[in-house]
């Protein structure tokens, strides 16, 4: 008791400035959130000193409340659509508009410097407003967004005088061609990072050359398909200090002058650690990059379908320091064996399918993954699309690599069992969750029964995100997960036999989570209504496809798509016709 009093005394003794200084060392969002919950004075100090805010669901809070709480906001990260929108399961126009956020921030006195958006609808109007409203705006990162054109980019280029970063990753951009790059004024020399790889159209080559020439701080440059080989050479001559390079078109005659020039330009770039692009490539051109392979820590060849097994392995044999590798499955199991024997520092591996029409020619199986697990003990993050998987392989992988934080396995044929034993993959995934005590994200596939969920509930104590498709036998499966995974934040389920019983057993659980997605399951309209009634702090959305307009209001009707999320601001006002918020 005495000791308790002394503690309290000491806390009140520190002036605010000291506490603020202490809080400066606390940067993670989670930790800062925890700090703010300690007591009123800590809440106050923390909120005034907070500069970076992450909002995982843009509908969970309103811009006004954000602005009111964090007047010192400089960097905002927002996410919009649910993850399954990536796979066309969410209709366009569902929502996730950034405009209201930018409008509210522009009206306030917030000195926004950085905006990072994922899966949001970004209009040219928003980009223009953004570019004109914040004098010190420095960094714009858009990932998987849509709704804007190169006109919006032109506004950013023209008006953000101190722009350091423009990073466009995998967005659907309406390309009006060419001129946006010319919108960077001659006085703009502050660029550190420029990524426009996702733009489909032509660009003004002279403009990009001049821009790079006047950007001495440029560290990261990712070009699009329209930038030819010889322009790349010119750009590299201007920017030998690059750390991260994304090539555009990489096709040229290896005996030509241009090729030799590029080779010597690349050799001058001794700082390149990260390489991507190769959107158009011919195998014989890859030798130009061998000189820089030895220092690479990140290599992304997942958009280079022109490279096959041998070309890839020849290249990778030069990359001994690789920590992250993104590749297509045409590397094959043998190729993965080469990765395993070469890349001892490998932490993250993503193997994407090259055959998307489903002709069943995926070139990697459980063998490749086992090779990797044996050769790369530091592996902690995996995304693996494969033809098949066995329990034995997964058990081996679990033994070899206990450090997985992210484990996403996609067997291309849904519900495919272990081809050797014809059993479900419950034991294999069970081994993964049991062995990998730090596992935060898991995606399942293949034939799975309720048993795998029992294991997940029992062992996956740190699990935050779980993706399930075509799995399970009954409500028990979903219940094991909801009851067992205490740290679960995001749960997304499609085509599973989980229904109202599972959904409604512990409605309070959803308040501890960011969101729940269920599509093509057994939940009914009645079940969703009940949930919405019991939990006013949740927004329960029913998304109807167009054919189901005649869909009756019968409570027994199964719901095609349900998305629910906790929110502090009630039902959103911008939902389209086909979204029904209960």
């Amino acid at each position, binding site marked *: 008791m005495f000791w308790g009093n002394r503690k309290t005394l000491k806390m009140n003794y520190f002036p605010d400035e000291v506490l603020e200084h202490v809080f400066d060392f606390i940067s993670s969002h989670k930790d800062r959130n925890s700090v703010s919950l300690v007591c009123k004075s800590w809440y106050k100090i923390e909120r005034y000193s907070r500069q970076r805010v992450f909002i995982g669901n843009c509908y969970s809070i309103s811009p006004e409340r954000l602005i009111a709480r964090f007047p010192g906001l400089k960097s905002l990260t927002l996410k919009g659509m649910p993850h399954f929108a990536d*796979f066309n399961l969410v209709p366009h126009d569902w929502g996730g508009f950034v405009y209201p956020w930018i409008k509210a921030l522009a009206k306030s006195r917030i000195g926004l410097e950085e905006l990072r958006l994922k899966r949001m609808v970004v209009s040219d109007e928003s980009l223009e407003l953004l570019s004109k409203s914040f004098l010190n705006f420095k960094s714009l990162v858009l990932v998987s967004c849509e709704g804007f054109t190169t006109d919006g980019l032109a506004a950013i280029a023209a008006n953000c005088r101190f722009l350091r970063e423009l990073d466009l990753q995998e967005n659907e951009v309406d390309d009006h061609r060419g001129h946006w790059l010319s919108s960077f004024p001659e006085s703009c020399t502050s660029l550190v990072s420029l990524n426009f790889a996702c733009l489909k159209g032509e660009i003004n080559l002279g403009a990009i050359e001049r821009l790079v020439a006047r950007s001495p701080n440029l560290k990261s440059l990712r070009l699009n398909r329209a930038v030819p080989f010889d322009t790349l050479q010119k750009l590299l001559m201007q920017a030998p200090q690059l750390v991260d390079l994304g090539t555009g078109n990489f096709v040229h005659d290896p005996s030509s002058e241009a090729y030799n020039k590029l080779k010597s330009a690349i050799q001058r770039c001794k700082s390149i650690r990260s390489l991507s692009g190769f959107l158009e490539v011919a195998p014989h051109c890859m030798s130009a990059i061998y000189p820089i392979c030895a220092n690479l820590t990140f290599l992304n060849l997942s958009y280079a379908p022109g490279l096959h097994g041998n070309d890839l392995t020849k290249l990778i044999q030069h990359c001994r320091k690789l920590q992250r590798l993104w590749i297509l499955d045409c590397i094959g199991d043998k190729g993965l064996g080469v990765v395993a024997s070469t890349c001892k520092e490998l932490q993250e591996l993503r193997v994407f399918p090259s055959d*998307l029409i489903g002709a069943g020619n995926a070139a990697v199986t459980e063998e490749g993954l086992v090779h990797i697990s044996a050769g790369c003990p530091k592996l902690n993050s995996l995304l693996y699309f494969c033809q098949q998987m066995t329990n034995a392989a997964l058990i081996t992988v679990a033994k070899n690599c206990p450090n997985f934080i992210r484990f996403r396995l996609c067997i*291309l044929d849904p519900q495919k069992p272990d081809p050797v034993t014809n059993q479900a993959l419950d034991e294999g995934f069970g081994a993964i969750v049991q062995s990998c005590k730090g596992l935060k994200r898991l995606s399942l596939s293949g034939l799975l029964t309720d048993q795998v969920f029992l294991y997940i509930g029992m062992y996956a104590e740190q699990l935050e995100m779980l993706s399930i498709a075509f799995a399970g036998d009954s409500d028990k499966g979903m219940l094991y997960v909801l009851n067992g995974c205490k740290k679960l934040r995001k749960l997304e389920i499609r085509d599973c036999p989980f229904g109202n019983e599972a959904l409604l057993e512990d409605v309070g659980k959803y308040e501890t989570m960011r969101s729940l997605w269920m599509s093509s399951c057994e939940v009914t309209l009645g079940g969703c209504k009940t949930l919405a009634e019991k939990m006013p702090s949740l927004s329960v959305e029913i998304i109807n496809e167009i054919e189901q307009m005649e869909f009756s209001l019968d409570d027994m009707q199964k719901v095609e798509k349900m998305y629910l999320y906790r929110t502090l601001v009630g039902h959103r006002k911008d939902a389209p016709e086909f979204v029904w918020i209960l």
Partner: protein
Amino acid sequence: MAYEKDLNLEATELRLGLPGTSEESAEKQTSATLRSNKRALPDMNEGSVSGDNHSNVAAAKKCDQETASPTKAQVVGWPPIRSYRKNCLQPKKTEAETARIYVKVSMDGAPYLRKIDLKGYKGYPELLKALEDMFKFKVGEYSEREGYNGSEFVPTYEDKDGDWMLVGDVPWEMFTNSCKRLRIMKGSEARGLGCVV
């Protein structure tokens, strides 16, 4: 489940795993598999049996088509890959490759012409079947020596040089590149092109 029986899905059920797996798990597999296909169908419970045969049949047909092909090709959003990536990796389609080739098709005696997109067919058998369906006729059997044998209808086309040629003589690609219009000749006129009736 009532509607399963109505649609007679067992005949077309897609079985995963080796034959001889237990009935129970096979059933569960198929019902789960079918679930993803059934989703698009309106609910077939109760009154639909007697009152709505047409839509039952239509729905059954739709289900047959869906379950007959590999599931993975049909399931929306599977494999889980971002559309951006899918679009980037599709076999490179140049403008020329994706351009449609619409040609007029006339049949002797028919009141009006039709138009078809030659790019929509992979080869002669598909094209001929489509023409047969469209105009309700049957071509004879094709042979290089004798042309179309066994029917008074003969498919012909006008090529880039303005000559009327028999459909089927040249490789498909060459045909689609040189065909300006199609004409299904009938009766005596057709005989001039080597048709033996």
